[in-house]
């Protein structure tokens, strides 16, 4: 079986700083892959490379067997297939929650608000936000904003969802409501890649956990392998600090 998303030898530099130094990764359909590692280990950059927000300097990324890392390729259709949710939500502050969600489907797919309304209302209801649709981002809690950001990405009906430390900016008591959304998405069979510091969550739900260190995937495996019997000394040190 070919992977939904495959990375081979992905490199990314910012100036002289090499953030990703040859990453190989396969994500199968419906799989949840968690990237763990210290800040600055390259998790976020790797996610941004996957949906072409950052062009890769070297290496190849395949989506459904199609090379999407080819220089000069139009990134827009790819980004429509691969949604991303950011740590700082990045909602559009001048639009209500529902307008945030509808903007891209309206402009990119040319759908009308009336056409979108049932599907979007359903998404808001599914994540317990049907009474928040007309609120502006600054009228919502962090957890609510992050759920709206997830709905916004889902409204484009992507095949893969990327999550960039989406609970890191939240108050501890709000983390749960967002993790519940991820759990729900995983059960629905969404293919997901998460950069996360939520080790308990990764251990419980991930199909695969990758430990990134200084721009490389140092070790990967099932949560049980990685958390219970890490092979690499660096992994052991990292886990002993965060667990």
């Amino acid at each position, binding site marked *: 079986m070919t992977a939904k998303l495959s990375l081979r030898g992905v490199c990314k530099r910012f100036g002289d700083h090499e953030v990703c130094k040859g990453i190989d990764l396969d994500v199968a359909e419906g799989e949840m892959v968690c990237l763990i590692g210290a800040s600055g280990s390259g998790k976020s950059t790797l996610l*941004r490379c996957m*949906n072409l*927000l950052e062009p890769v300097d070297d290496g190849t990324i395949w989506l459904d067997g199609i090379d999407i890392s080819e220089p000069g390729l139009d*990134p*827009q*259709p790819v*980004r*429509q297939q691969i*949604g*991303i949710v*950011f740590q*700082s939500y*990045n*909602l*559009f*502050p*001048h639009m209500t929650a529902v307008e945030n969600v509808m*903007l*891209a489907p309206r*402009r*990119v797919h040319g759908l009308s608000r009336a056409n979108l309304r049932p599907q979007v209302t359903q998404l808001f209801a599914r994540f317990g936000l049907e009474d928040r649709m007309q609120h502006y981002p600054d009228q919502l809690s962090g957890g609510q904003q992050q759920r709206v950001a997830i709905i*916004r*990405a889902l409204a*484009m009906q992507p095949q893969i969802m990327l999550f960039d430390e989406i609970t890191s900016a939240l108050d501890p008591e709000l983390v749960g409501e967002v993790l519940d959304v991820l759990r729900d998405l995983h059960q629905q069979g969404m293919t997901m890649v998460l950069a996360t510091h939520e080790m308990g969550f990764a251990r419980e739900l991930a199909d695969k956990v990758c430990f990134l260190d200084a721009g490389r995937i140092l070790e990967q495996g099932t949560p049980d392998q990685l958390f219970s019997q890490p092979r690499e000394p660096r992994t052991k040190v990292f886990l002993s600090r965060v667990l």
Partner: protein
Amino acid sequence: MNDTSLQSPPEPQGSGPTRRELYEAGVRRRSNRIALISTVSVVLALIVLVPLAPGWEAVQRAFFNGRVFTATFTGLLEAFVLNVMIFAWSAPLIAVTGLMIALCRDTRAPALFPLRLFGIAYTDIFRGLPVVLVIYIIGFGVPGLGLPRPWNSPYIWGTVALVLVYSAYVAEVIRSGIDSIHQSQRSAAASLGLSAQDTMRFVVLPQAIRNVVPANMNLFIALQKDVALLSFIGPVEVFRQAGVYKSLYANFTPYVGAALIFLALTIPATRYADYLMNKQNRART
């Protein structure tokens, strides 16, 4: 060492003001008193000293003549309607032109490079010239081409001159607003598959424009004053009308009347712009 041991322990605080509040109230009273005394003495000094100047009586007759003031003020107000009208049709043109120039300067597509170059040249040239010079060159130069009526009207070319200069400033203000929108907003829009144009139109510009409303208000207040410069090429607006009255009455009081009319409009407007600016600064912190 010291006598703290002799003091009784502090009384538990009741419902009255705390020591801190009492102290701060005292400081406030004291500074208010000083400010009042200093203001009153400066004003008194002016009232007493200025009339002591040798030319004061002549100045008073020439600039603060009550009879001339009442005789001319209505006429000045009527002339001011023209200022308001010129402002009213210039302002929207300036806003639209400024926005377009700002967008020109922000284009990144190689095919549109001439547009970008044009935007840069435009803002450099028209911000670099005195308003009155542009009004002279355009206002006297273009009708000199021998255009037929109504195309030789100073109203048209004066307006064009104001639009050229002020849209250059507005463009720079809008561009700074565009730059102030955080990169993460563009990332979010791009990640949803929005095109660069849609990102600008629906995500960046609405936020940028909102951010620069106070700065642009200050520009439009300046425009309201600079409308008076059009009098040099013909239109009899309030400044020119005051000049006519000055000659008629051989008295400068009409200029003071015109100044009061400008202030009646610009002071509330500047106060409002400041209020908006402060509100925005507070919201940011």
